[in-house]
């Protein structure tokens, strides 16, 4: 745009909003124009609630991220043929053109040692390691045909979160809050929780705002201690003391606003006030002891302890308070054998995750929240039909045919979607690529994934890059 058009646009918009009863004050309007000049869409309060392209079935998302890549063969995909061919070399035709992270070429097919059984009306088969999940199978939509492009943890985690293998792009949660804002006035719109022995590989780049304004970055909450960095007043500063200082700052800021007429100051006054609110609302949120004994027992949660169960319960409390997107990371599912194996280590992580995941779905349903809350459960990729040659049983990373489940928020409950071949190498029916999953999640939130864009470095970027299709079959 040349100067003339830029001026015209600004002036037109100014008039338009000033005259059409949109109700933006001069201050918000200035902000709107300034935001727009920066390439950002939302006006005034960047977290203001906004309507999507069309009414979405899901209003919020809880994403249970199983970091490391859970083995579908030990949990979701019983493959008798694989058991039959256990110990044999994999068919060369299936290995052709495939790339793996660690396999050397001498690996043999590995049949699962786990027992499977069918659950519920839908008859989803689950292994003995997921007895609690078995109770909610009919509330869950099972995708057994996931595919990704990358077989290393960091890049694959980035890919499923941001649609791109390298860091630097906005994550799903950032896009969701950018598009919808947040209903919470005193908590961040996008919250990240973590449990397990270590943080996920690639760290904060997984919940980054990328090139979106930093208002949309995921805010890590620690599940014990102070939830947010710098949430606590400096040593010796009481709540009243803090209030007095903030009030004084407000006055100085107000005076400056009068002097300069810069609407940005009002925005900053609001941010400071929200910070103050957050200082009391976040600790209240973390008080799991407010929950009933029976609720705690259902999740397997223990107040004051950092665990996946606690985080699931926190996730429910967060969405109850209007938070838009909650992402839980749980490590470690990287069962190669050797260091982490498919025997005791997998059993341990399943014990940590199974009960609380199922409890979360049941609890949301009981409270009427499941209808418009989308729960996602899955890792960055699955694992190979071959075992690795290591000290104990394990499998390598595999980009095809892994399982991910969703519940609530407009997905068909009790649907078993997608099919893999009898050895689980690849998908034979209804493949769902990571970009398709992203397009579908955005659709559930009310967005056309091709239109939820942000202009950066001269290009309209989107979560799905130039790919992705909505999987209509799994929608209610």
């Amino acid at each position, binding site marked *: 745009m040349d100067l003339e058009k830029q001026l015209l646009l600004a002036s037109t918009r100014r008039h338009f909003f000033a005259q059409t009863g949109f109700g933006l004050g001069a201050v918000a309007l200035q902000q709107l124009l300034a935001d727009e000049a920066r390439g950002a869409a939302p006006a005034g309060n960047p977290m203001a609630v906004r309507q999507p392209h069309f009414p979405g079935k899901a209003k919020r998302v809880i994403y249970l991220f199983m970091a490391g890549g859970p083995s579908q063969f030990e949990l979701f995909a019983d493959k008798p043929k694989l058991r039959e061919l256990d110990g044999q070399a994999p068919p060369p035709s299936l290995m052709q053109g495939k790339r793996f992270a660690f396999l050397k070429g001498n690996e043999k097919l590995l049949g699962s040692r786990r027992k499977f059984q069918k659950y519920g009306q839908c008859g989803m088969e689950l292994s003995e390691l997921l007895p609690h999940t078995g109770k909610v199978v009919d509330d869950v939509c099972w995708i057994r045909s996931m595919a990704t492009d990358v077989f290393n943890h960091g890049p694959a985690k980035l890919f499923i979160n941001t649609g791109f293998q390298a860091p630097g792009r906005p994550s799903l949660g950032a896009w969701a809050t950018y598009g919808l804002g947040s209903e919470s006035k005193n908590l961040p719109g996008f919250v990240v929780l973590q449990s397990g022995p270590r943080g996920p590989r690639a760290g904060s780049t997984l919940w980054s705002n990328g090139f979106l*304004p930093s208002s949309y970055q995921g805010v890590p909450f620690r599940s014990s201690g102070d939830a947010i960095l710098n949430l606590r007043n400096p040593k010796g500063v009481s709540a009243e003391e803090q209030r007095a200082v903030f009030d004084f700052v407000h006055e100085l800021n107000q005076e400056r606003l009068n002097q300069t007429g810069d609407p940005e100051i009002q925005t900053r006054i609001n941010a400071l006030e929200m910070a103050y609110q957050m200082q009391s609302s976040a600790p209240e949120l973390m008080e799991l002891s407010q929950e009933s004994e029976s609720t705690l027992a259902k999740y397997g949660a223990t107040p004051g302890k950092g665990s996946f169960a606690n985080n699931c319960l926190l996730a429910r409390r967060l969405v109850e308070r209007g938070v838009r997107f909650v992402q839980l990371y749980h490590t470690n599912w990287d069962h190669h054998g050797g260091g982490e194996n498919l025997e005791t280590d997998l059993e341990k992580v399943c014990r940590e995750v199974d009960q609380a995941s199922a409890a979360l779905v049941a609890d949301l349903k009981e409270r009427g929240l499941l209808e418009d809350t989308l729960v996602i459960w899955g890792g960055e990729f699955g694992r190979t039909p071959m075992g690795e040659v290591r000290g104990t049983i394990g499998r390598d990373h595999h980009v095809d045919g892994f399982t991910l489940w969703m519940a609530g928020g407009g997905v068909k409950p009790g649907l078993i979607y997608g099919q893999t071949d009898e050895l689980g190498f690849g998908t034979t029916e209804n493949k769902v690529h990571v970009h398709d999953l992203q397009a579908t999640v955005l659709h559930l939130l009310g967005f056309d994934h091709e239109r*939820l864009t942000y202009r950066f470095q001269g290009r309209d970027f989107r979560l799905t890059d130039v790919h992705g299709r909505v999987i209509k079959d799994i929608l209610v």
Partner: protein
Amino acid sequence: MRTPPDPRWRLLFSGARPGGRSAVGRFFEALTPNLHLARRPSFSPWAAAGLSVALFTTGAEAGPQRIGFNEKIRPILSNACFQCHGPDEKKREADLRLDTFEGATRDLGGYKAVLPGKPDQSALIERMISHDKDEVMPPPKSKKPRPTEAQIQVLKQWISEGAQYEGHWSFQPVRKVEPPAVRSEASVRNPVDRFILAKLDALKIKPSPEADKATLLRRVHLDLTGLPPTPQEQEQFLKDTSADAYERLVDRLLASPHYGERWARHWLDQARYADSDGYSIDGARPMWPYRDWVIRALNEDMPFDQFTREQIAGDLLPNATRSQKIASAFHRNTMINAEGGSDPEQFRNESVVDRVNTTGAVWLGLTLGCAQCHTHKYDPISHREYFKLFAFFNSSTDVNSVGETLPVVPGEIFPAPSAKVSPAQYAAGLRKVADAQSTASQRRAEWLKKLEAASEPTRWQAPKAVSATAKSGRQPRVLEDGAVVVPSAGAPQDVVEIHFTPDQAKASAFRLRLLPDSSFNAQYAGTAQDGSFALTEIELTVDGNVQPFAWAVSDLNDPKNPVSTAIDRDPQTAWQLDPKRAESKGLHEAWFFLKEPLAVEGKRCVVRLRHESGKNRLIGKFAVEVADEAPLLPPEPKVAQEAWKLSRQTKPGTNPNHPALVAAFKKMDAPQVIAEAELGRLSAIAQPAQLLIMKDLPKPRPTLLHLRGDFLNPDKTLGPLQPDTLAVLPPMAPSDQPRTRLDLAKWLVDPRNPLTPRVTVNRVWMRYFGKGLVETENDFGTQGTAPTHPELLDWLSSELVSGGWSLKKLHRTIVTSATYRQSSTARKDLREIDPLNLLLARQNRIRVDAEIIRDSALVSSGLIDATLGGPPVFPPQPEGVFAFTQAAKPWVVSTGGARFRRALYTHFYRSAQHPLTSTFDAPNFSTTCTRRLSSNTPLQALMTANDEAFMEMAQAAAQGLWKKVPGTSKAEDAERIKQGFVSFLCRPPSDQELRRSQQFLGARRKALAESPQDAALIAGTSAGPGPVELAAWTEFTRALINTDERITRE
């Protein structure tokens, strides 16, 4: 009643603007492409009845003028058509391209998309206004907004006028522009103002008055150095009433070393500088010498063309200096994926792609990345051209790995007074190694002659009649074969001597053999539990005279504790083998050489083994042997065997450069071994950074086009591509040599290249006004915005080039202009006509960057340590920053001054950056960042209100105020308040602010007196006026730290 837009609009318009009611709506919608808000019915622009008339009926009065293609037509076509009818031939529909005259006017079988002079016979128009769903362009499924009626009218007029095309503005040569004459001559301070005023004059808008002196002082301080003026500097400037006080201030600030720090930060954003590898492992790596290089280069005002050449290709410059090699680290700021199981070739390609895209963004302002997978949809950048650029970067030696490095010690770029090794000493060490290497070939030839003549490579003789003693009184045993066993029980440190009288006439070298023995450890020769030993020193005396060893080699080398430490006469160092390494097990040996052969026959020799490091780390069993002639081949059996074999096979003297011979000789060449040992010693003390630098393979890798950008899918039919640049820009200088990065670097700053100077001055301008003359500073292509002041952009660009590419001159020109010096206060009259302040009838208030939020508070509180450069520091950060990363990063909080350094020096982990930077909008530098966004979030407020670092500054500032103005009188109170404002906001308080501050302090004193324990914690010290008083003042300074004004450049 609705107010129509300012009628002055028409003065800016050229060309007719007929239009109807709905045209406004579409126009409006078309220009807000990514705003889903705009699509909500309640926003429907159609509701704005009447507005359209006002907007689009003004043109007639101005009279018709020729429609400019770039100004009017290209944006319409680019938005609506080019995606399918543009440069990308793969995606081109109906074989029609509309971005060139030839394409648009091609015969399409009896009709043309554009028939010059005949809009009504041009299919372009027909299709755009069609009501047929299958006919209309752009097609509904493209989801592109339809051109508005107004746009159609403009297109029609352009076609009637002959449909002339122009090249895209940014690709045209930079014009020599004369600054225009203006009506308001009095408002002109320098030519910049003429360009701004010309537009303001046309709209009869008055520029804003100059900002008051205090505001201006703070503004230019923050802009040029990133630091606020101190109270002394404020006083000095406010007192100075001379006519050129401001200009002299600017010169002072440009000469300040902090200027380089401030502007380096912007450059480092673009260089995606970080102190870690990125991706999941994200280990630390020492890139700081490059950061310091940038600071120094800017402080020295290195011409921007040189600045460019050294960073893109410093390593390829003839006789590249160390400084130039350091500069080449610019493109080593790419990430390395150290995750197990990664395909190095995949991430090598990622780095090359990043180097291409970064170069495109930083110098050319182009979105080259779009052409990685396909020909650019909008700009004339083909897929093939992308890979020609790729070819420049495709030959570097790093493969998702450390690659080439350059050791740099602290002090080389900026003084490091506490460094134990001076850069001069270290440089001398490096030089000695280089000298020894450069003179080696002659010595090697002589050595080879000897080797070929020799009948055996080494000849060691065990002395007879050996006896052994130990200083502590323990009793070493001498075995029949002359080996000595040292009992492990006894003094934890000891000196073991063996005595003998050699048979041979002379001695040139002594060999110490380490012999594991099941009496203490079957696998290792050391007496420690883990089998380790530490030989502090080995000495030789002959007939009572000490004979120093000149150099030493061993068959296994632990670089941390090499064998040279046993002859360095330094009791702090000792020869060791790391028992954790499997190779350390078993037999090992070290050879010690005398400077000259020594007559030893019949003389009493003593070899003394000093074990004076650690506890119980003796050599438990050993033997000493003597060689009359120095061995020709090294103790490593493999190296020696291969060289020996070669020396038997080749004809005498034929192949002295065989790698195996070179390797063997290097280990036995005294000058090289001595020089390396000395350098090793210096390195152990100085711990130089092993800076990642660029280096190319001797033979370039062939570059194939990657289909769809996928490195696994190279286009083999097309064949290798030669390095070249974009056809749309002036060509590279002809050359008969294969082109390298150096050619690319030269081309980037070739005066004929119109993009580099435009992009560069635009980014500098952007920092001063919050927005560039071209708002899309990273997209000078057709999808970007056109410059608001194209003549000014060209004038500044040509001044930059003709002024010898001096950035300081450019800065000076801008900040001494009246335009820059205007007040930033909002104006009612401008709100109407220029709400975004594109015309610059005033300055803008700008939220300062993350780094300045910290640095300025450090200055105001008096805590800052203004040391320049050096390894990164670790200021306090809240606990839990690493709770969410794969592995906790080492973060030992710095003490002393290092705690209070500028934020630029804080260690930057890409996967877990310090919360100051992530909270205040700094990206994680995975890719180039040419411009940071600015957001307002509650987390920012939490940080400045509660973070330990800011609290520390508030406390220090409160103590500082009391120190400066002690006393409890009302006047002293008021003076302290004033000083607080002066320190943090660089201005005295207004009467009202003073009154409110007094009330605030009064209330705090009262409240804190009731909880003295809290007061003590808040004050942080009980010195001075006591905890309650100090706490109240700490709360006061804390409030100042948290004001909007403090983090805003006004």
